[in-house]
Each structure stands twice: as C-alpha cells, then as structure tokens.
C-alpha cells in the first residue's frame, strides 16, 4: 500500500503543488484502498468514474492556487450532491438523487476538490455509534467489532483508515467531535451560522452545523477555510469576511486564559480520561497559558434540554417525508393518510421513529409549555454560563467524550446510555459555539481519546491555534494496523 495516502492533507497538497504526484494518480491510490476496505462499510456510494474524469480534467489544466488542488474527497452522506445518491443513512432516501448541490460541498469543489464518494452515517444523523444506519454498522479501523462513533461514523472511519485525505461531517450534538475522538482524528464544529446549512439533510435546524474532520489541526484549518462563508440561501448564515485560518495558524499561546469547568468531571469517568485532561492542562501551561478553574453550573441539564429541542425540531423537519414528492413510498394503504403512515413506518428506523415521537409529544397541545418552552429557557441558562465565563477565559478545555470507542451492540439496548456519550459535546451546540476535538492519547486498550477546546462565538482561529500548539507538544500517534486488508 502506498505511503502517500497515509500522509496528512497539507502534505498531499504540497506534493500536488510540487507536481510530484498527479491528481489522477492520487485518486487511483484512494480508489484502490477503498475497494479493498469494504469490511469497514464506511462508504455508502462511490463515484469513481466521476472522480477519475474530474482528476484528468484537473491534471490537464491544474489550478495550483486553489486551497484543495485536485484533491479527492469523500463526504458524509448527509450533504446533497447533484446527480449522486444522497441517502442520509435511511431507507427513506435510498434512491434519492438530488438535483442540486449543497453550498458547503460546492465550496469544496470550487477550491479544486473532487468527490470520491458518500460516507455512511447514522440515519438522519441520529445516533452516536453509526448503528442506526439503514446501510449497516461502520467499523472503527482502530479495532474489530468497535464502533467509530456517530453520527459522522463513516467519515471518521474512512479518514482514519486512509480512504479519504480529509472529510466533512455534521454536528448537531457531537456528531463530528465524538467520532473524531473515537478514531484519533481532529474534528471541528464551527460557530452556528459559519458554514451554510443549505443542501444538508436537516435534523435539528437550530443546532446543525457542518465542519471538517481531518488528520491534523493544520488540515482542519485548510478545510474550514474552504467550506465556510456567507450564503444567501441559508437565512441563519452569518455575514462576515472569509478568514485565512491556515495562513494565520500559530503556536504562540502565551498568556491565553484556558478555563477548566469543574462540572465536566462526571461520575464514573474512567481515570484515564481524567489523567489525559490533566496532561492537556500541563501541556498548555508549559506553553505559557494560564489555567483557570471555572464553573458552568447548568452543564448537567444540557442533555435533557437537547433531548427536547433536537427531537422537536426533527419531528418538524422530518414531516416532509410523506412518500409524495421524493423518497420511499409504501405500496400499502387504502387512502392518503394510510399511505403516509405506512410509508413513514416502513422507511424510518427505530431511533428516528423514537425521536419523531418524542418531538411530536413535546410540541403537542397541552405539553408545549412543560417541555419545549422549559427547554428553551434552560437553553438560555446554558448559553449564559458560557457568556459569563468567556469574559474571564479565552477558551475552555474539556474531555471530548466520557469513554473511548465501545463495542458494537454494547449500548443499543438502552437509549439513555447511548445519549450520555454526548454529555461533553451537547452544551456547545446548545450555545452555538465553536469547538474542536483533538487527539490526546490512548487508553490502556490502545484506543484513542480526544480533548475538546471550546471557543467564543466566531473565534475558530483561536481554538485552532491552541489545538495546533497542543498537537505539536502532545506527540499523539494513531496505531492503525490495516487488519481488515
């Protein structure tokens, strides 16, 4: 197997710019390994003819000034790709071929990237282990029978297994950062509104954000720069100038104040995670940062709030799947209503149904104030916790997840134990803040663990810098042995 595809995105871009490798050769290296890695089940759809054709076009007239010159990339199957099946991991959209392109993927293609394929994910991005996908479980390349996390599980697995040099996911409650942590990769959830949501299959619109998943912090800055930007087609898109995250990346973090929230030391957290957190603190301290203890008192209410807000928005967003305009339609039913009921019953999986029912209930007449309005109020308190502390600190350091990757089937019997996976990531979505998960070490099983840096609104550059400085001094090395080949 070629050594080239093991390299980071930034190194691969350099090789292309120095003309040491052509786009087509590179594409063929990835295609070859994807074909040999079906066991991981990280791809739902491949489009290799398109990839080769586009890479040939690039090689004929290479634009080397773009951010991602001739780089083949696979993306989460939640981004609509014009002419290529977009399933959202659901039977409902098994044969759906969008007639338009999502803004974020369009931005990547404009910077020279080329689509390799669509990556597996939890159904409608609802899940933390990639076990709810209609297209089957994804395997974590770290170890057999182990989940890659979710919902961007296919993205994390493909990235860690060198089946794409970088990728993008979406993060509603931790769906980029948790799988990044489980696979020893970097994942960033941007500030709500930085990346356009247009053309992304909707889950919970006030929480959904697209973001990069990469092998290094530098790669992450390149990808974010390529995908971010104002978009008229998304009414929540923030109007601001494009930033040069990769050019402005620096390791000098002297004098920065890093907050350590005491509420993130949860009960039954493995000792290794606590140790890793301490290691993170001491690395940043040695680099000249001030470590400051802080309190985010409403942290424990973030998950219960999330499990009202997200299902409520999901039940409303997923009302569009009625078997009429696109997607699956049941052949059973005597009238229109029965057709709707059978279509949705046959094509949605158990977790999606569960969340639609929760959402429908909390929004239903007589219960709205007790649940939905209450959750919106607590969401305000959670946001306030962050607002108050960001007067005192520049960034917040926490573990990314309360455990390392778990076994397939280990948590599927109990929805709450699955939901608890997102305990450290969910508050960030509720507050609309940016956060990055960066690999920090291995547990005693040899499975990777990540640390999370949370930043102020639109302060992506700052958390990228801290993560960059941390990465350079942490000496993390992923140990993936290609056992599936």
């Amino acid at each position, binding site marked *: 197997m070629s050594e080239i595809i093991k390299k980071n995105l930034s190194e691969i871009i350099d090789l292309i710019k120095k003309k040491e490798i052509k786009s087509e050769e590179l594409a063929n290296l990835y295609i070859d390994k994807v074909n040999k890695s079906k066991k991981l089940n990280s791809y739902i759809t491949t489009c290799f003819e398109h990839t080769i054709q586009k890479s040939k076009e690039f090689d004929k007239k290479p634009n080397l000034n773009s951010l991602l010159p001739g780089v083949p990339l696979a993306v989460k199957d939640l981004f609509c790709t014009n002419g290529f099946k977009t399933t959202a991991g659901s039977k409902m959209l098994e044969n759906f071929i969008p007639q338009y392109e999502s803004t974020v993927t369009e931005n990547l293609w404009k910077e020279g990237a080329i689509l390799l394929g669509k990556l597996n994910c939890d159904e409608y991005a609802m899940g933390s282990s990639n076990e709810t996908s209609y297209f089957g479980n994804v395997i974590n390349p770290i170890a057999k029978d182990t989940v890659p996390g979710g919902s961007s599980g296919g993205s994390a697995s493909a990235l860690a297994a060198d089946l794409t040099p970088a990728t993008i996911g979406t993060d509603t409650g931790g769906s980029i950062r948790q799988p990044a942590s489980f696979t020893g990769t970097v994942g960033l959830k941007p500030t709500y*509104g930085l990346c356009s949501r247009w053309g992304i299959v909707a889950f919970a619109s006030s929480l959904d954000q697209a973001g990069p998943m990469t092998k290094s912090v530098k790669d992450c800055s390149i990808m974010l720069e390529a995908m971010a930007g104002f978009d008229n087609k998304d009414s929540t898109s923030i109007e601001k100038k494009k930033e040069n995250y990769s050019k402005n990346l620096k390791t000098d973090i002297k004098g920065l104040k890093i907050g350590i929230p005491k509420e993130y030391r949860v009960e039954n957290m493995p000792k290794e995670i606590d140790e890793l957190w301490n290691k993170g603190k001491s690395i940043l301290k040695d680099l000249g940062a001030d470590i400051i203890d802080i309190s985010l008192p409403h942290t424990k209410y973030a*998950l*219960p709030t999330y499990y*009202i807000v997200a299902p409520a928005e999901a039940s409303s967003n997923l009302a569009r799947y009625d078997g009429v*305009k*696109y997607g699956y339609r049941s052949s059973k039913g005597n009238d229109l*209503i029965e057709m709707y009921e059978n279509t949705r019953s046959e094509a949605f999986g158990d977790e999606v149904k*569960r969340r639609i*029912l929760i959402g429908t*209930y909390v929004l239903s007449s007589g219960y709205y104030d007790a649940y939905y309005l209450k959750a919106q109020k607590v969401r305000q308190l959670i946001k306030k916790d962050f607002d108050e502390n960001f007067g005192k600190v520049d960034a917040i350091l926490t573990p990314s997840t309360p455990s390392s990757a778990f076994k397939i089937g280990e948590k599927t019997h109990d929805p709450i134990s699955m939901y608890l996976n997102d305990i450290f990531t969910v508050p960030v979505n509720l507050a609309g803040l940016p956060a990055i998960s960066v690999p920090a070490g291995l547990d005693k099983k040899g499975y990777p663990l990540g640390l999370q840096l949370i930043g102020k609104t639109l302060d992506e550059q700052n958390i990228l810098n801290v993560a960059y400085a941390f990465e350079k001094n942490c000496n993390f090395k992923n140990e993936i042995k290609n056992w599936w080949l």
Partner: protein
Amino acid sequence: MSIDKDKIKHISKLARISIDSKKSDSLAKDLTSIFKFIEQLNELNTDKVEPLSSILNTPLRAREDKINDGKIRDKILENSPKKNEEFFVVPKVIE
C-alpha cells in the same frame, strides 16, 4: 411522566407513523425512561428566564421577493415515487 400504549397510539397518529402493538410496548418503555431523564429540568426554577429561540444575535434575514430559479419542474418530478406527466400522484382522496 409515564408513557403508556394509549399515549403511543395518540402520538403516532399525530406523527403519521403506524406502530404495531408489539413495537408499541418497547417504545412505551423507552419513551418512559427518556421522559424521566428529560424531567430533571423540573429541578430548575425558570420563571424569570427568557426562552432562547435563536442563538444568533441578529434577526433572521429576509430576502427580496424575487424569482431566482424556476423551469425545473421535470427535474423535481424525477425523484417522485409516482407521477403522471407534470403531476405528483397520490392515492384517491375524493370519491
């Protein structure tokens, strides 16, 4: 709040998802435990708290009421599970 089979029947009707009675038992159990978890929020007094409906500091942008695409009827119809020339087809609703 405990969720029983009758409640599942009522919500699934509202959500237009048919649920068979076998599934409805396990759903009732799952939803009961989820609601127990959610109801931790009742520990908090939120009488004086403003609900947060948008995380953005600015109001939603309104766009100019201008047509910027169109003539894509056939493309849209391509993904329809059942169509008849330029129409979506649904089961008969009027006798």
